[in-house]
């Protein structure tokens, strides 16, 4: 659903590609809802991929935020698939600047929060505005470390972009690579295929 790849402490031997490739396996957890058909608890082989690069940018005043809807809803930036056989693996990176981003799915529900009551992202709060926020150095444009997984009919994911105080305006530039993956269902995956498959969690599994 959403992953953040930390900077590796060391690299030993051959490295794996960051993005899903042809022949890789993915499985969707059993938390995926029935409203999104044909995914719950199923395993797929990636039959082919196509990487599509895209940039979006906004200039915002200091102390202001903008909610960017990543879905295909009216007003969204249309990064979701329209085909039920497509999985979009979206790598997201930021150009440098005095801004940050927080994720919500669906709108109003935080992806990154702590457990104590009130410990939720809040751009209006001097103490909570950095909670759950990704800054440009966390996922640089040239080395994207935030991975998002979108399928058709997934609830809209919102990227709240906030320009911090200390400047007049900031240009927030998001570098996006949409790794379009065409899925081929494995009706009876072997235990080895299941073990090698990347598990795609539903967003509710990230909040407990």
């Amino acid at each position, binding site marked *: 659903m959403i992953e953040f790849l930390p900077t590796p402490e060391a690299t030993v031997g051959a490295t794996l590609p960051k993005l899903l490739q042809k022949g890789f396996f993915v499985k969707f957890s059993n938390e995926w809802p029935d409203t999104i058909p044909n995914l719950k608890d199923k395993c797929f082989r990636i039959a082919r991929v196509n990487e599509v690069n895209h940039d979006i940018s906004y*200039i915002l005043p200091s*102390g*202001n*935020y903008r909610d960017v809807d990543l879905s295909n809803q009216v007003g969204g930036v249309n990064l979701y698939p329209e085909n039920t056989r497509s999985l979009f693996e979206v790598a997201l990176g930021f*150009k440098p600047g005095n801004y940050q981003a927080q994720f919500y799915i669906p709108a109003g529900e935080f992806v990154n929060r702590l457990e104590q009551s009130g410990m939720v992202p809040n*751009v209006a709060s001097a103490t909570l505005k950095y909670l759950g926020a990704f800054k440009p150095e966390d996922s640089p444009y040239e080395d994207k470390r935030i991975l998002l997984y979108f399928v058709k009919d997934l609830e809209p994911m919102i990227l709240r972009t906030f320009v911090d105080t200390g400047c007049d*305006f*900031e*240009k927030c*530039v998001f570098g996006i690579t949409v790794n379009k993956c065409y899925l081929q269902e494995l009706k009876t995956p072997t235990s080895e295929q299941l073990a090698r498959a990347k598990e795609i969690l539903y967003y509710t599994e990230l909040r407990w």
Partner: protein
Amino acid sequence: MPSLAQALDAVGLVTIFAAEKQSAKIIPTQIIVDNEAGLAQRVITIQDVFTTAASIIAATGVAVAAAVTTANRLIITVDNAGWATIAAEALKELEILGQLQVVIDVADVGTIVTISWGFE
């Protein structure tokens, strides 16, 4: 890296050097103001013109509409028959979010500005 030299003789006093690049900021790397043939001391302003996106003020929740904005990023006064050169080291924190343009206090065909820039 692009570079452009222009005389600041525009009727409206504004000379455009570079249009906005949507996916990057413009980073000036060198500015030279040649006022040797200028008719008087001139004041040169490096401006940044851009359109902000619609947004919300975090502290109040009030919506703010998109708006065209002009920000003065650098003001240089150059004596009559003088030069000013500002190199990369002094410009490294100067960022242009939108369109890079130069305004002169009085149009003068003898005042020539050369700007080099890159993108970030």
